[in-house]
Structure formats: C-alpha cells, structure tokens
C-alpha cells in the first residue's frame, strides 16, 4: 500500500470523505481537515508506520500531496538514522 493509499484509508475512516475526493492536489481545509485534525492524524500515521513524530508537524502542509511527501521524508530520515533501508511502502500489510 502506498503512503497515499494509507493516508486515504485513514481519512475515509475518520472524515466524511470519499476516495475520489482524496486526490493528491486536494486541499486539506476543503476536506474539513483543520490543523488540529492533522495533528490527530499524525498519531495514526505514527501507529501505521511505527514512526515517531517528535518534530513539530509543519504548518504549511496544505494538500494531500504535502502530507504524503512529509511522511515519506520522515520515513526515509528515520530509516537512515537507524541505518536500514526505508520500509517498502508497497509491501502488503
């Protein structure tokens, strides 16, 4: 499952949105996801990827694509810090 698909699944569970709405360029605000919702979303992302988001979540994440890029960068950075390859995001889970 790609980062985008994972994010889509979480948002579909938590917000009244459809997969069709969750295109990469979709604005979070237009989907009803505000800055506090985004923080709560990050808890679920942490669980899903066994990540630890201790940095402040950037405030300029405005689209779905922004969040995907942020998660992927975080995954790569944390994997590198542990000296392993980034997790295979396409592996079935």
């Amino acid at each position: 499952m790609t980062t985008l698909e994972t994010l889509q699944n979480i948002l579909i569970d938590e917000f009244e949105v459809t997969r069709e709405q969750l295109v990469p360029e979709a604005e979070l605000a237009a989907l009803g996801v505000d800055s506090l919702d985004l923080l709560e979303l990050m808890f679920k992302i942490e669980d899903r990827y066994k990540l630890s988001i201790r940095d402040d979540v950037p405030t300029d994440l405005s689209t779905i694509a922004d969040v995907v890029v942020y998660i992927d960068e975080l995954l790569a950075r944390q994997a590198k810090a542990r000296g392993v390859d980034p997790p295979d995001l396409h592996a079935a889970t």
Partner: protein
Amino acid sequence: MSERRVAITGLGAVAPNARSVDELFAQLVGGRSAIRRLEAPMFASLRSPIGAAVDFDGSAHFAAARLRMLDRVSQLALVAAAQAIADAHLDFATENRERCGVSLGTGMGGAESTDEGYHIIYAERSDRVKPYTVLNSMTNAAASWIGIDHALSGPNLTYSTACSSSAVALGEAARRIRSGDVDVMVAGGAEAPLTFGVLRAWEAMRTIATQDPTDPSASCRPFSRNRTGLVLGEGAAFVALEEWQHASARGARIHAELTGYGLATDVVHITRPTVAGQAAAMRLALNSAGLDPDAVDYINAHGTATLQNDSIETAAIKEVFGSRAYSLPVSSTKSMHGHLLGAAGALEFVIAVLSLVRGVVPPTMHLDAPDPACDLDYVSGCARSGVTLRAVMSNSFAFGGTNAVLIAETPHDHRRRPSTGLR
C-alpha cells in the same frame, strides 16, 4: 416604557430515561426511576456503582469529524438546546442575532475529555494527548457550540456554581432580557459526569448513595429516614427565554413566565448548607416575582437525598412558607433522574414548568419511611394530577453555597404586590 417580562417559549431535555420533555415527564409522572447499576467493567471497583445515564449515542446526531470536537457534555447540550429552539419555533434568520444569546450552567464541563486526557498522560504514560483535549474539556465549550450552531452573536455565557449552575444560568439570562440587553436567550444546563474519575472523586466525599441491595433504581431516597446520599446523573435541559412582546409579536406559544429569581449564599463552610441561606434565596425569588408565599402551588425541591440537604431544605421551606409549608406539595424528582449537578437546576425548572402547564405534580419516589425532620407533603410515591398550579418554584442549592431559586407562573398576570423585578 412598560416593564419587560420573560416568556418561556421553548423546552428541551435529554435526560436519564428520556430523549424529550414528553418522555421525561411521562417517566416522572409514572414514578419510573432511571437510576441503574453501571455495568461497564471499569465501574466494578466502585463502592456503589450506580448512576442515571442517558441512552444517548452521539454518532446518531453528529458526524464523526464533528464528534471528535465534542465532549459528551456538549453533545447532550447541543441536542437539548436544539429541542428548545425547535419547540419555540424560533427562526434566528429573521432575528437580530446580536440580541440573541446563550446562557449555560455546568459544574464540570467536558469531564470525559479531561478524564481521557489524564488517562493518556498518567496511566498510559504517553505524550499523545488528543489535540482537541483543551477545546473539548473547557467549561464553556458547550455554550460556545450552541452559539456557533445557531449563529447567536449576543452574549455567550457559562456559569459554574456547582449544583446551582444552570438555575443561575436561567436566572441571569432572564435578567438580561428584563434589562433590555437582549430579546432571546437559549438558557440551560448540561453535565456528563459518569466517568470513572468523577465517580471515584464523588465517592471519596462519602456523598454517594449506597446501592439498594434489592433494587438499585430505588437507591436515591430524598427526605427518607434511611436516605444514604445522592446518585449522579447526566443530561441536559434547555429553555428558550424571550421578551414577552417579542414572543407575542411573532405569535409564539408561551408555556409560562419566568417571574422570580433569588440568589443568596451560604458562607459557613464549602459543603454545609444553611437554613438562612436557602430561605433567603426563596424569599428573594418571591419578592422578585411579587408573590406572597401563599401563591406558590408547587416546589420542585433541591432534595438531593444527602443527610444534610433534605432536613435543612425542609426547615428553610418552613421558615419561608410558615403554616402554608404543610399544605404545599414539595417533591424531589432526583429520586428518579438522579443529581445532574450543573444541569440539575435547568432540568428541574423544566420539570416544574411542565407541572405548571399540565397540572400534574411529579412524585418523590422511594420515600416509605420519612425522616422525622422532614415532615412536609412530599407527594410520596404517586403523582398528583388534575391540580391547578399558577406558580411553581424550583430550588437549586450547591457546594460553594450559591443558592438559586427560580419561579415560573402561568402566562397571565395575577401579581398580588409590586415586584422587585429580576434584580
């Protein structure tokens, strides 16, 4: 300028055993207690795991994204307030919204969110406190959401005087209408205290009733010799208060008039009620309504079933009403819906108004053996119907000492002496 009067044009309640004011009154008149054993496993370690819960699932009323931002107390408040607004047929789109406001009483605010937040911090030792914790638990959240939902841009006020909170909220709202500041106030109370942390804290005070071994629903016994304390309940109740001419001009049905509001404070001890303080609040309410004690036809008592309250309240009623006290129906509906803390005043005022409108006095239940110090007509065991009520009083007293008393009258003028007004 003629005196501004306060019409009650809408009623709403989400209470133990009741999703509407009609259900509420039917349950009370039928003498049916909503007090139950709380069966969730986490309550098992309580000494007396009883409470009066509302059969209420927030997801039936709010979308998931919205629900995250609403503590249970706000959910209950929003639903009950919407009922009162609908009952009044108020259309705020046609109102000057700056002259419409919200006045809410709550003792503990978003207790569930507070409890959950502390559980995450201290029990789970996690730093993942939900981002909405502050906004969900803050005491004024419920009032704010009502204001936002209905776009009421006048005063938005939250009162917290423990168990008299929402009686104060109604009285203060009525004063604002009377003074000319506003025309419409959505006023009420909400409380959702049935969390483990809150129940444990109340239990530590030794004020919670012992569970009746054979019938948990009979655990709360106001005015009884064998009363053992109060039972916590949850819920919300609201009224739409409206300036009389404003209500008349739009052809609104006026349930009753809010004519009396009295406030007086016990200053002896943070938990100890006084006859003087309670009596003073009742007298001030009578004076503000311009009523003689003889004119009151029913008192919905504070009647918590704690050892202290019931005998003190009885003595205070006798002091104010003299010999009339013995022929005046006084009932404690807390015997059935429990003690809704900050929501109690509004709920019991709504019940008193329903009594007035329907000519039925709800009973005090489980009063088989009265305390010798409690010797009034408590309408024990069975509702009294077919009675003519012109003026009803609702008593709300509190830890902290803020005694608040409200009076409602049938919607016509039968004043006996000049009113001091809702000062």
